[in-house]
C-alpha cells in the first residue's frame, strides 16, 4: 500500500482538459423545435476535467491505498473473505452475459435463463429447499424478501401477527428487516453455551409470533445444537423460522438447512459462493424456501419446459418484485462458475476445511485470548479480547496492531453480547503457513500488550493513515466536495 496521499479527482481538475472519446454526430443537427427548451437546461456542471491518464493514475493510486484479499489474510469474522477465483470474473465478462439486455426476447437469452435455472437447482441441492429466487441484490435484501414471504403466509392464514423473535447475538440487519416489514423485534437471550436460551424462548413463543430469525451457525461461530427442537416449538404455535445464511460456508456439504426444519434461508453469494465484495457490493443473495413459502417467492422465476426456458410471472400469491430486473445477474454467473468448478466433492471440502481452520485458530490462540464459550466452533471463533487484560488496552487496539503485522484486522465488538469481542474467520482457502504467521502475530501482540502497550494504542503506524477522528466526522459531516464560489 502507498502512504502518499492522493488529492481528490476534483483537485486534479483543470479547466479545458478532457479525457473522453466519443464519436461526432453522424446524423443531421436537431431541428429548432426538437431541442430541449433553454430554461430546462442546466447552466453549469462542475465535474472534474481530467485527461484519461490523469483518471487512470488517480484511481490506480486510490487502489494502492486499499487492503484486499489479494494482498493478504483478511480474517473478518462473519464476512467469509475467501479467495475470489479469477475464472469467475472471466466468465462474467463474456459478452454473451455482460452485454445481454434484460428485455431481450426469451428466444435470444436461452443460455442466460439456463444459467439462472441451473444455479437455482444447484443451490436447492446444496440447501435442501423446494425452490429459490436469485432476485435479492444482497443478504439484507434477501432477508427483506424472506420476511415479506413469512408475512404473506400469515396474511393468507388470516393474521400477519406482530412479533419477530431474534437472538441477542444476531446481525443488525435482522431486527432492522423485521421493523421494515412491520414487525416488533423481540430479543431472546443466549444461554451460557452461547446458543438460544430454550427456557426464555419457550416463554416468548405465542400465537402472535410471526417467526424467529436465527443465524446458523450463529454469530459466535457455534452451531445451534437445539435447532431442530426450536423449529418444532415455533411451528407448534404456527410461527416460521428464518435462517440468516451468512454463515452457510460452515455447513457446505455437511447439512442441508432445510433438513433442520428452517423454513426460509438467504445465502450471501458474495460470501459462501466467492463473488467479490467490491469494497461493499454488489453482492447477491439467493432466497430459498420450503413448500410452505414457495407460493410467495418474488416474480419472475425461470421455468423450463421441454428444454426451453422462460420467465414465469404466473404466481398469484407472489410478494411481487423486489428488484428492477432479475437481481445481480453477473454475480450469479460467478457463483454458478464456482459451484460447477467445485462439484459435490469440492463443496464438501470447502465447508470441512473452513471448520478445520476455524478450530485450529481457536486452539492455537486460546492461551492468549479469552474464549467466551469453550466448545468446538464452526468456521469462526469469537474471543472476549485478551486473556490477560492490560491497562487501557482494548480489543480495538489489538485489531489495529494487526495492521502493523501486515494483516487486515478481525471483526471487533460484534456480536454485541461478548465484551471486547474479537471475531476471526479464516475461511478454507488459507494455508497452514498463513494461519501460523497470523497466530504468531496475535501471540506477539498479546505479549506486547503487557510489555509495551503503547505499540497497540498507537497502532497502526504502517497504514496509509493513522487512526482517524470519527467523532468530528459525525459531528461536522463533510460528505462531498464543494465547487469554489
Amino acid at each position, binding site marked *: *500500500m502507498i502512504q502518499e496521499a492522493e488529492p*481528490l479527482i476534483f483537485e486534479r481538475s483543470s479547466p479545458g482538459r*478532457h*479525457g473522453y472519446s466519443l464519436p461526432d*454526430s453522424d446524423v443531421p443537427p436537431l431541428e429548432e423545435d426538437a431541442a430541449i427548451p433553454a*430554461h430546462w*437546461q*442546466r447552466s453549469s456542471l462542475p465535474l*472534474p476535467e481530467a485527461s484519461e491518464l490523469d483518471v487512470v493514475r*488517480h*484511481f490506480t493510486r486510490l*487502489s494502492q491505498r486499499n*487492503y484486499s484479499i*489479494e*494482498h493478504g489474510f483478511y480474517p473478518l469474522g462473519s464476512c467469509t473473505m*475467501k479467495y475470489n477465483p479469477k475464472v469467475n470474473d472471466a*466468465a462474467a465478462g463474456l*459478452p454473451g*452475459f455482460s*452485454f*445481454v*439486455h434484460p*428485455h*431481450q426476447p426469451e428466444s*435470444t*437469452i436461452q*443460455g*442466460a435463463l*439456463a444459467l439462472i435455472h441451473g444455479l437455482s437447482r444447484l443451490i436447492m441441492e446444496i440447501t435442501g429447499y423446494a425452490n429459490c429466487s436469485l432476485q435479492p*441484490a444482497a443478504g*439484507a435484501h434477501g432477508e*427483506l424478501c424472506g420476511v415479506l414471504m413469512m408475512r*404473506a403466509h400469515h396474511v393468507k392464514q388470516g393474521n400477519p401477527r406482530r412479533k419477530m423473535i431474534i437472538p441477542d447475538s444476531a446481525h443488525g440487519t435482522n431486527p432492522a428487516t423485521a421493523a421494515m416489514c412491520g*414487525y416488533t423485534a423481540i430479543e431472546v437471550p443466549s444461554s451460557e453455551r452461547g446458543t438460544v436460551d430454550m427456557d426464555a424462548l419457550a416463554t416468548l413463543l405465542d400465537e402472535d409470533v410471526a417467526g424467529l430469525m436465527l443465524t446458523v451457525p450463529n454469530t459466535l461461530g457455534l*452451531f445451534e445444537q437445539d435447532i431442530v427442537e426450536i423449529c418444532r416449538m415455533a411451528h407448534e404455535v404456527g410461527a416460521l423460522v428464518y435462517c440468516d445464511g451468512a454463515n452457510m460456508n460452515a455447513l457446505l456439504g*455437511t*447439512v442441508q438447512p432445510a433438513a433442520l426444519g428452517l423454513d426460509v434461508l438467504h445465502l450471501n453469494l458474495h460470501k459462501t459462493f466467492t463473488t467479490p465484495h*467490491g469494497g*461493499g*457490493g*454488489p453482492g447477491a443473495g439467493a432466497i430459498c424456501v420450503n413448500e410452505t413459502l414457495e407460493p410467495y417467492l418474488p416474480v419472475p422465476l425461470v421455468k423450463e419446459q421441454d428444454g426451453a426456458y422462460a420467465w414465469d410471472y404466473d404466481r398469484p400469491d407472489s410478494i*411481487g418484485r423486489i*428488484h428492477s430486473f432479475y437481481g445481480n445477474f453477473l454475480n450469479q454467473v460467478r457463483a454458478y462458475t464456482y*459451484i460447477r*468448478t467445485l*462439484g459435490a466433492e*469440492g*463443496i464438501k*471440502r470447502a465447508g470441512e476445511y473452513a*471448520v478445520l481452520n476455524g478450530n485450529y485458530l*481457536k486452539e492455537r490462540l486460546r492461551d492468549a485470548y479469552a474464549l467466551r464459550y469453550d466448545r*468446538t466452533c464452526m468456521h469462526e471463533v469469537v474471543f472476549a479480547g485478551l486473556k490477560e487484560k492490560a491497562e487501557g488496552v482494548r480489543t480495538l487496539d489489538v485489531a489495529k496492531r494487526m*495492521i502493523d503485522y501486515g494483516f*487486515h484486522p478481525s471483526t471487533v465488538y460484534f456480536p454485541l453480547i461478548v465484551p471486547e469481542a474479537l471475531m476471526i474467520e479464516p475461511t*478454507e482457502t488459507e*494455508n*497452514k503457513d498463513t494461519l501460523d504467521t497470523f497466530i504468531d502475530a496475535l501471540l506477539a501482540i498479546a505479549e506486547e500488550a503487557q510489555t509495551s502497550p503503547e505499540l497497540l494504542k498507537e497502532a497502526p503506524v504502517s497504514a496509509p493513515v493513522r487512526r*482517524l477522528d470519527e467523532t468530528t466526522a459525525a459531528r461536522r459531516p463533510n*460528505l*462531498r466536495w464543494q465547487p469554489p464560489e
Partner: protein
Amino acid sequence: MDYVPHSDEDREAMLRAIGVASTEDLFQDIPANVRHPHLNLPPGMSEPEVIRHLQALGQQNSNVLEMPSFLGAGCYNHFIPSIVNALILRGEFLTSYTPYQPELSQGTLQAMYEFQSMVCLLTGMDVANASMYDEATATAEAVLTACSITKRSKVVVPDTFHPTTLEVLETYAEGRELTLVRVPTFTIDDDGAFHDCWDAVGAAIDDDTACVAVQVPNFFGWVHECQDIAETVHAHRAMLVVSADPVALGILTPPGEYGADIVTGEGHSLALPPGLGGPRLGLYATRKKYLRQMPGRVSGMTEDIEGKRGFVLTLQAREQHIRREKATSNICTNEALAALAFTINVSWLGPEGMRKKAELCLAKSHYAAAQLDALPGFAVSAPGPYIKEFVVHCPSQVHHVNEHLLEHGVLGGYDLGNVRAELDRHMLVCVTELNTRQDIDRLVATLRDFEA
C-alpha cells in the same frame, strides 16, 4: 477442482493441534441423522472445462454488441470506456470488504466520497449516499422515508412512472400504512397518439400527501415540467421525490434547482454493461436537513491523529449494525464497485463529455423518430421534449413487428403491451450514442419491408 490448499501433512498437524482424530469430530453438534447428505451435484471441473461450458452458455445468448438494439425501458446501453473495467477489476478494489477499517480502506472511502460529490453535482442536491441496489429500491426507500418524515401515508405518482419501480414500491410498502394514488396523466386518441394531462398531478395533492414521486424523463421518454408541481407539493408541506436519469442530467436542469427533496436514479448506464439487468446502481441524494433520515452508507472526510486528511464511514448511528430495529433501513451491502465504475466514467467524461453524450442521444433519437414517423403506418408520439426514448405507434402488435426485426438481426424497441394491454401496438424506442446512423437506417429499412 477446488481452492483448498491443505496438504495431507498440514491437515494431520492441524487435527493434532486441535486434539481430534478427524474433521468429523468437529461436526458433532449437527444432528447425526441429517449429517452428510448425499448431494446430487455434477462433478467438479477444471478451469478449461468450466470456461468452455460457460462460453457455450454465453453463445446461446444474442447480445447488444453483435446486434443493433433499440431496447431501453429502464436499462440503457451507453458507452463504458476501457479504463473502467481495467480499474475496477484491480484486486485492491474488487476483493476488499466494506471499509469498516478505514486505515486499510482509504482507496474505497475516497472513491465513495468522490461518488457522493458527483451525485450531488448532477442532481443539484446537498448530500448523497454511497449507493443503493438499484433505482427501484432507491425510490421505494425514498418514498418510505418521505412518509416517515412527514408522518403521512398518501403517495401520489403519475402513471408515467416506470411500472417496475411502482411494483417494487408496493412490495416494500407491505407492512406499512401507505396509500399509493396513481394519477392518470396522459390519454391516447384513436390514432394512438399520446396527449399529456400533467395538471392532474397537482390536483391530486392535498394535506394528507406525504410525497409526490415523479420520473425525469418519464417511463415513455418525455420530460415533464416539475416546477409547478414542486410549488404545490411544498404548499401542502409534502415532499417531492424525483427519479432522474443521470445521463439526461448531462443536459437537463438538476432536480435540486426546482425543489426536489429526494432525488433517486439508476446509475448503471454510466458504470456497467447491461448484464441482463444486474448489477445495477441506485442513486440517492437529498437535502441537508434530511441527512439523518437518509438510508445507506456514507463516507466523510476527516483527519488522522497526525492531521493528515482521511476518510471514514460516518453517521453510522442511522445504520442497522448500530441502531438495529431503529435504523433508517436494513441496507448493508450496497453496489460499491458499480459506484466506483460510475465515478471513473464520470471523471473521464467530465462536464463536456456528459453534455456531448446527452446531445448525441438527443440528435440520434430525433433522427430515428423522424425516419420512423415518415414510414407508412408508423407514427411517433411524444407530448413533451425527449432525449433518448420515444413511443412509436405501429401498424400491428409490437411483438409481430419485433419478430420481423429479429429475423433481420435487429433488436426492436420495448413492447409497451407488456405493461398495459391496450398499448400492444406501441413500441418504446431507445436510441443512445452507441446507435450509429447505419443502425437506425437499418431499423427503418427493415420496418419499411414489414407487412402488417
